[in-house]
């Protein structure tokens, strides 16, 4: 029994080591950065369309719609670039986590009230869709954003593990 438990502990430890490894962390960090850069660019190019998308959520007060449409893509872009380049990683990671949580809540609220909208996450000029297609897309977007939150969690966990090792050394 003891041997089995030791094996299990070793296995868990191996998985944990792999999940916090430099190899994985750098890839997750760059992938997350690329996601945010790709998401930001079309919105930076066409702020009025993105303002329209934000308006459709019906949760942002009117005077803030345009300000949000103008600034949010740039913050996404800078955070994405920071992750890709490895500069100010912790701050970028925190901002990205905050934005993802806001996106999930925003989509969730609209799903709950049955307001079928295009998320406008990667394309502020989406093709016309039926209500059902939009609802399906919104559900997918929530899962996708949760997946990205897991990526942020991996970065945070790896950073913590690295600090522990540094402190122990």
């Amino acid at each position, binding site marked *: 029994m003891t041997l089995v438990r030791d094996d299990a502990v070793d296995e868990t430890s191996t998985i944990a080591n792999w999940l916090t490894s430099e190899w994985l962390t750098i890839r997750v960090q760059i992938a997350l950065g690329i996601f945010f850069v790709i998401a930001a660019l079309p919105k930076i*190019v066409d*702020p*009025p369309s993105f303002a329209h998308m934000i308006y459709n959520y019906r949760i942002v*007060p009117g005077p803030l719609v345009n300000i949000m449409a*103008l600034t949010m893509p*740039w913050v996404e872009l800078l955070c994405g670039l920071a992750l890709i380049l490895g500069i100010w990683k912790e701050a970028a990671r925190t901002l990205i986590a905050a934005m993802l949580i806001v996106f999930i809540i925003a989509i969730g609220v609209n799903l709950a009230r049955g307001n079928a909208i295009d998320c406008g996450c990667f394309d502020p000029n989406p093709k016309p869709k039926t209500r059902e297609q939009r609802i399906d897309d919104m559900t997918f977007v929530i899962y996708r954003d949760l997946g990205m939150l897991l990526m942020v969690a991996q970065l945070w966990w790896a950073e913590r593990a690295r600090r522990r090792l540094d402190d122990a050394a």
Partner: protein
Amino acid sequence: MNWKKHVLEGLTLVVAGVLCAVIANAVAARERKLTLVGTYPNALKAPVQAPTQAPAPEPRPALGGAPVSSPAPAPVTQKRAGQDTGAPPKPAAPRPTVTPKTPPAADPLARFTPHPDKPSVEIGYAEVKALHDGGALVLDARRTSIYEQGHIAGARPFSVWESDVDEKVTRLFDERGDPREQAKPIVIYCSGGDCEDSHMLAQKLWGIQFNNVYVYKDGFPDWQARGGAVRSGTNP
């Protein structure tokens, strides 16, 4: 972890983002520019959703909806300010007036009377066609880039999402300074369906004294499908 440094870096990223946004907006082309503070009165109003089932063909007469025997273009759908367009259309409120048997007088637009109590009245293809043929002003509330791909012949671009919309509305008011001119019918359209840009523009026009505005409920796709005159490019 150095929290102070962490927060400072985060704030720097946000401030840098805001600065980039302001500068980019300042140098952006007119159709890609936004006013910093938008005016969207219904931004927090949750829209009323259509039923989840696929919409069945309307059993009612066309949205232009006046009774078949009546030539009058009675407003079919009455719209409250900023009401969501996803709501199912309400049946036409029959007008108490007696429909004249004789053909209308020389002015084909005379039957489209002002309605100062509401920003707009939704109409269908038949009414829009009559107004268009009668020379009424037609405004396209979609984005300029979409307008250029194809629009109702003679329509002017008036995108509500572009920064110069207020300027255009003011210019229109200057063009039609006389109250009689302001009472002339104006048709607004966008992409139909749940597009509410037309209503947003109608609200703006109503706010500046235009009291005879009609919203083409089914919008450009319907106009195109029914073979209405279409033009592309930057000119009306």
